[in-house]
């Protein structure tokens, strides 16, 4: 890897970006998703966080343009130069421009926007072109392979040389032998994903991934992908408070419900649906319920389970009715005792988080089948 002359880099760890216009090749939501995903990759290996702005100046201004577009490097029609970005700094600094004459896609055909954006944001953060043909920062575009984590170790070494490691990043020690000592963190310590003391506020499935909430952050993990994303809750849902109590997803409606105190929000992707927050009492809870510890949606039965202290309530989506009275958790889930922190369903098992333990429960056999660490899902 290499950096720009003078090694310019951002002095702060939370950077803003703004998408000035959209390519007609993709739905705007797909552009938003590709850009966010690209930033998330850089976030996953550094302490950097990225926040989207919809107005005013942002550190990284993103635009689509053709031919001459009021900077020093005009585009050249289809093929050839497909995008460029500027090193950290004021004015143009950090900005990324994409050639509208390319055919931008979210697939492996044409020019994959996520993959190109990921390379360009490498420049926006201070990486120069790499001579390593396997590196993302190599200047020639390669066909995007979605099954492979897009950063090569050379890219990770480069960005961590500038900003240090994410305290939550897993690094294979065999691959990271040449990594220089990370920069001193400038913010209070973030939760350590591999700590044996790790506990979660809430856990839910989310569009095929699993989200693990802790204070003002959450981790995103696909069960079959090694990489873990780490985000600020406010970066996804700016109006949502930190310290989520419980969360569950209803996949057939593409909705996720998040609870905090006696209020709840329904989100679809990174959009909070209008009309929220609402009070939990509209769901049928009695007034003595002030918060929900954990919740999950049982897809097989069409029931939502809400856990409060050592009891649970269930809501039948088909009959749209809540239990009149809560039941003891241990009566329906033998082996699960007392208050639980979080719960979610994966395949045909329920995973209950209780302090430093995670209990895998088989609803068919009605028993706990495994006792796991809370960070079982992460590459620790």
């Amino acid at each position: 890897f290499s950096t720009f002359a003078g090694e310019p880099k951002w002095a702060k760890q939370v950077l803003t970006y703004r998408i000035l216009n959209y390519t007609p090749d993709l739905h705007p939501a797909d552009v938003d998703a590709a850009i966010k995903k690209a930033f998330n990759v850089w976030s996953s290996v550094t302490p950097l966080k990225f926040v989207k702005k919809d107005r005013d100046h942002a550190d990284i201004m993103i635009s689509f343009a053709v031919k001459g577009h009021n900077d020093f490097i005009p585009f050249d029609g289809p093929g050839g130069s497909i995008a460029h970005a500027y090193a950290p700094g004021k004015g143009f600094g950090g900005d990324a421009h994409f050639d509208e004459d390319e055919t931008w896609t979210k697939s492996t055909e044409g020019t994959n926007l996520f993959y190109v954006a990921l390379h360009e944001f490498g420049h926006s953060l201070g990486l120069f072109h790499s001579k390593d043909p396997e590196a993302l920062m190599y200047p020639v575009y390669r066909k995007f392979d979605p099954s492979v984590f897009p950063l090569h170790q050379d890219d990770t070494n480069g960005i961590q040389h500038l900003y240090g490691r994410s305290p939550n990043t897993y690094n294979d020690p065999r691959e990271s032998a040449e990594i220089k000592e990370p920069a001193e963190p400038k913010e209070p310590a973030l939760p350590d994903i591999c700590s044996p003391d790790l506990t979660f506020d809430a856990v839910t499935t989310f569009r095929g991934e699993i989200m693990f909430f802790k204070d003002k952050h959450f981790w995103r993990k696909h069960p079959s992908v090694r990489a873990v994303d780490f985000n600020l809750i406010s970066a996804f849902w700016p109006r949502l408070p930190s310290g989520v109590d419980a969360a569950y997803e209803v996949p057939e409606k593409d909705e996720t419900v998040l609870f905090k105190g006696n209020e709840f929000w329904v989100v679809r992707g990174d959009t909070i649906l209008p009309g929220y927050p609402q009070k939990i009492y509209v769901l049928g809870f009695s007034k003595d319920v002030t918060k929900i510890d954990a919740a999950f949606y049982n897809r097989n039965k069409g029931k939502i389970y809400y856990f409060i202290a050592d009891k649970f309530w269930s809501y039948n989506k088909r009959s749209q009715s809540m239990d009149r009275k809560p039941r003891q958790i241990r009566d329906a889930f033998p082996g699960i005792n007392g208050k639980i922190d979080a719960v979610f369903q994966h395949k045909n098992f329920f995973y209950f988080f209780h302090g430093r333990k995670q209990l895998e429960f088989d609803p068919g056999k009605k028993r706990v089948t495994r006792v796991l660490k809370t960070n079982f899902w992460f590459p620790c």
Partner: protein
Amino acid sequence: FPVDMREKKEEDVQLIQKYLENYYNFKKDGESSFVWKNNSPITKKIKEMQEFLGLEVTGKLDSNTLDLIQKPRCGFPDVAG
């Protein structure tokens, strides 16, 4: 060269010159396209480009070099301007 070969060669030369101008800070100095010496500025620049991109360093417009420079790429130069 037969005429069509000459035209092809001329196209390739223009392509590499443009590539080197865009990404390797090459300044065209009126040098004849076809008479390249080992230490001419364009040969040196081609070698620099081949070295950077991980190609065999020949200083010549071989097929691997031509293939690579026709692929889509990031518009940011490979050497500082």
